[in-house]
C-alpha cells in the first residue's frame, strides 16, 4: 500500500538557498494530503524531491517502506500533474494519455482500453484525437490528470494543478480530482498556495514556510487550533491584537490591550503573567451590535468601511484603543450596519488563540514573501 515517509529531508541550491529544511513527514495510504504555503516556501521543491526530479541534499524518502533516494523517477511508481500540464505538444490526447502504458510496454490492447477508460473518467473521450493546442485550460488539466492516472501508479502528485484556471472551473475540478483519487484509492499529495482549495479537498494539510513545516493537521485542526501565528493567518483569516497577560486563572487568562482594555481569553499553556502576547480572533468569531450592548469581551468601536462581498459582508472597525479589526458576517443574516455607526464587538474566550509575541516582530512573522 502506498505510504510516503520523509525523514530529515533537506534541499539546498548552492550555498545560499535552503529550499527545504529538515522536513520529516508521513503521508498515509489513500490519504489526500496537501502542502500549502506562500510562494517560494519550498512546497514544489519538496514535491519534486518525492517524485525523484530533484535529489535531496540530505535525508531519506521512503515509498512503501522502501528507500527511494537512488531510484529514478520512472521507477518510483508515481503519477505527476504539472502546473503547466506539460502535455506533449506533438501527441494527441489519446497518445498523451497512453504514453505511460506504452513506455512501460504494457500489452497494446490493455494500454488502449485503459486510455479510453481514463478519458471517459475525465469526460474527454470525444476529444481523443485533439492536440493540446486545440484544448481549453480545463480540458488540458483533465488530460494531464488522465495521463497521470493511466500510468497505473497508486501515488498521484499534483503541483498547483488548478493554478492556471479561472475560479469557476477551479472549483469544479478540485472536487472532480478528489472524487477520482477516492474512487481509485490513490494516495495523493497536492501542492497549492490556495488555502481554500486545500481546506475543501484534503484529509490533512501541511503548512510550510521558509522550507520548514510549521504544522500538520486536518483542515479542522488547522482552522480551529493553529499552533503558530503564521498558520492562524494563512489558514483562514485572523485579527491580531497585541497585549500583556495580567492574570492567569485555570484555562483562561486576562490580557490587557492598548488603552488599558481588558479581555478574557483562552490561555496558552506556556503563558505566564506579564508575558507579551498576540491574540488571534477570526473575523467570523466576533459578534457585532449597534450602539452599547452587553456581551463577553465587549469592545467599543466605529465602523470605518463596509464591503459587500456577495455571500458575506465585511466590516472594518476602529476600536476605541485605535486597534483595527475586521468582522465578517453572512450578508443574508440580518440588517446591515453602516459606515460611521458606533458599535460594540465581542467574542467568547474559546474562540481566541493566544501566542507569545514573536521575537522578530508580528509583521515579520506574518510576512508571506
Amino acid at each position, binding site marked *: 500500500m502506498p505510504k510516503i515517509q520523509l525523514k530529515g529531508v533537506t534541499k539546498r541550491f548552492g550555498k545560499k538557498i535552503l529550499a527545504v529544511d529538515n522536513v520529516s513527514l508521513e503521508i498515509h495510504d489513500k490519504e489526500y494530503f496537501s502542502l500549502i504555503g506562500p510562494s517560494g516556501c519550498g512546497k514544489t521543491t519538496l514535491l*519534486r524531491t518525492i*517524485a*525523484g*526530479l530533484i535529489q535531496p541534499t540530505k535525508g531519506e524518502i521512503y515509498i512503501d517502506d522502501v528507500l527511494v533516494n537512488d531510484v*529514478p*523517477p*520512472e*521507477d*518510483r511508481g*508515481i*503519477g*505527476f500533474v*504539472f502546473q*503547466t500540464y*506539460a502535455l*506533449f*505538444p*506533438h501527441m494527441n490526447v489519446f497518445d498523451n494519455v497512453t*504514453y*505511460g502504458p*506504452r*513506455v*512501460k*510496454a504494457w500489452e497494446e490492447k490493455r494500454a488502449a482500453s485503459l486510455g479510453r477508460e481514463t478519458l471517459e473518467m475525465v469526460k474527454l473521450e470525444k476529444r481523443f484525437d485533439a492536440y493540446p493546442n486545440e484544448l481549453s485550460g480545463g480540458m488540458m488539466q483533465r488530460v494531464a490528470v488522465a*495521463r*497521470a492516472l493511466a*500510468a497505473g501508479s497508486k501515488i498521484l*502528485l499534483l503541483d498547483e494543478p488548478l493554478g492556471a484556471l479561472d475560479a469557476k472551473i477551479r472549483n469544479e475540478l478540485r472536487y472532480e480530482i478528489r472524487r477520482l483519487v477516492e474512487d481509485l484509492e490513490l494516495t495523493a499529495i497536492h501542492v497549492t498556495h490556495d488555502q481554500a482549495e486545500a481546506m475543501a479537498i484534503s484529509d490533512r494539510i501541511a503548512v510550510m514556510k521558509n522550507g520548514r513545516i510549521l504544522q500538520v493537521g486536518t483542515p479542522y485542526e488547522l482552522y480551529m487550533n493553529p499552533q503558530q501565528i503564521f498558520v492562524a493567518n494563512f489558514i483562514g483569516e485572523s485579527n491580531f491584537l497585541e497585549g500583556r497577560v495580567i492574570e492567569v486563572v485555570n484555562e483562561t487568562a486576562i490580557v490587557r490591550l492598548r488603552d488599558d482594555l481588558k479581555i478574557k481569553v483562552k490561555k496558552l499553556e506556556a503563558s505566564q503573567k506579564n508575558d507579551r502576547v498576540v491574540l488571534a480572533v477570526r473575523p467570523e468569531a466576533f459578534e457585532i451590535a449597534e450602539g452599547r450592548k452587553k456581551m463577553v469581551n465587549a469592545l467599543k468601536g466605529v465602523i470605518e468601511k463596509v464591503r459587500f462581498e456577495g455571500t458575506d459582508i465585511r466590516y472594518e472597525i476602529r476600536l476605541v484603543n485605535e486597534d483595527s479589526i475586521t468582522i465578517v458576517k453572512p450578508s443574508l443574516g440580518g440588517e446591515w450596519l453602516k459606515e460611521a455607526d458606533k458599535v460594540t464587538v465581542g467574542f467568547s474566550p474559546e474562540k481566541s488563540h493566544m501566542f507569545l509575541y514573536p521575537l522578530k516582530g508580528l509583521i515579520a512573522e506574518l510576512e508571506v514573501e
Partner: protein
Amino acid sequence: MKLPKFKATIFDKLSSHRTISYSIYICAILFFLVLILIPPIFGIGLKWNLVGEITGNAELMSRAINAIWASFAIAIFVSIIDLVAGIPTAWFITRGRSRWLNVIDTLADIPFVVPTVTLGYSLLLFYSTSQGISSLFGNNLVSPGWLLVILLHFVFSFPVVVRVMVGALLDYQHTFEEAARTLGASPFTVDRTVTFPILRPSLIGAFVLAFARSISETGATMMVAGAFENGAIFAKNMKIEGQQGPLVFVSLILILVSCAIFGLIFVFGSKFRVPMRRIWPSFERKLSSKGVAATRDTLTLLVFFLLVIIPSLFVAFPTINAIIDGTINNAVSSSGIWQEYWASLGLSYFVAALVTLLSILAGLPMAILIARKRMGRSVSAVLDILVNIPIIVPSTALGASLSIFWTNFAFVPEIMLLVLAHLSITYSYFVRSMAAAIERTDIELENAARIHGAKPFTVFRTIILPLTKYSLLAGAIMVLTRSVSETGATIAVVSQLKTAPVLLVDWVSEYQSSTLTIITQSDIGLGCGILIILSFIVLLFLKLGVGRKAVY
C-alpha cells in the same frame, strides 16, 4: 532617485506619421529586392543563351554534372554526420554540470569564426603533410581530394549544428522530459519520443544551415580538393579558363536545385516525423544506463577534439615557426609579399565593416516587417521566404550571377561589386537573427509603451533595441566574420582587388604548384595565424559582450 535621460528626437516625432514609416518599409523592401535578391537570381538568367557552349561538349557536360552531383552528395552526407556528431556535443554542453563545459562551448565556436580558408589550410597541413598526423601513418594519411573535402566541410559546418542545437536545448522546457520520466520512460525513451520530436524544427534548421554552408563554401574547398571538383570548384575553374557557358550552366543548376531542395524541406519538413510510436522499454533502458551515457560522452569528446578542434587549430604550429625563422619580421616590416597581405587584410576589414553597417541599416526595418507583420501577414510570409534565398544559393554561383548582372552597369566600380556581393550573402543572416529576436519580444511590451504615449520610433529605440541588443550584436559580428572569410563570391566578382582569404588561396596554390615560388610555408602559416588571431578577438568580444544570450 534619478530619472533616466530621455530626449525626443525629430525621428520620434516623424515616426508617428504613417506615410513616413511606410516609406521606410518600402525603401527596405526595394533595397532588398533591387540590391540583394534580383542581381544574384537574374544575373545568370541574362546569360542563359551561353549554356549552348556546354551542351555541345559531352566531356565538359559530364564533368559539370559530376561536379554538381558531388556538391549535393557531400552537402547531404556532411549535414547528416554533422547532426550525428553535433547533437551529442550540444547535449553534453547543455546538460553537463562541469565548469569546463563553458570552455568546450567556446571551443565549439572556433571553426565558426576562423576564416574557412584558414581552416582549409589547417586541415591540409594536419592530414596531408609530414607535419601533421600523417607523420604517424606515413606522409599522406588523407590526400587532397574528396575525403579531405568531406572532413573540411564537416569541421566548418559542425559549429553551426552545435550552436543551433545548444540554443534549442537551452530554450527547451524540461517539464516535458520530467513528465515523461514520471510516467515511466527511461532517459533514452524520453529523448527519442519526446525531446527530439519537439525539437524537430531546430533539427531541420540545423540540417538546412549545415547543408547551405557546405554547398556554398569555395575558398577552403579549393585548398584541399586536389584534382577533385565539386560545383563551386568547377565554376571557379571555368572562370579562370574564361568559359562563361559552363560557369552559367553550373551556377544555374546549383541555384535551382538548392532552391528546390529547400522548397521541399519547407513544404515537407513539418510532415517529417521522428519515429516514436514503437517503444522497446528494456532495450532503451539499457541504452540509458550510466555506462552507455559515459561511452557516448567520451566518443563525443574524442570526435570533437580529434576531428574538429585539433585539425582546426593545427595551423597555429607553422605560425610559431614563422616567429622562430624570422618570417614575422618580414610581415611586420611589410616587405615583399607582405605588403600585399596587409593591403588585402585592410580591404577585407574595410569591406566587412561597410557591409555590416549596411546590413544593420537595411536589415532592421526588414526584420521588423517580417517579425511584426507591419504590411500584413501575406507580405511578411513572402518576405520571410525570399530572405532565405541568398543563404541557400551557393556563394560561387551567387558571385558569378552578380558579376554578370553588374557588368551590365559599367559605372559600378569593382569595390562596390565586392560590397554588393558580400551584402547579398550576409544580409539574410542579419535579418534572420534580428527577426527571430524581435518575434521573441512580447508585442504587449510595444503596446504598453504606445499606450503610455511613446511614438513608434521611441518604442523601437527604448524598448525593442535594448531588449534585442544581444541579437543585434551577435548578428553584426556574424556578418563581419562571414564577410571577412568570404571567398567564393569574391573570386567571382573581382579581378583586380584581393581580399585576405583570396590572397591566401593564391599563396597556397602557388606554393603547391610552383617550386620557384618565394612563398614559404611559414608565410602561409603566419598569414592564416593573423586571421585566426583577429577572429579570436572577435570571438572574445562575442563571448564577453553577448555570451549565451546570442541568437545566431
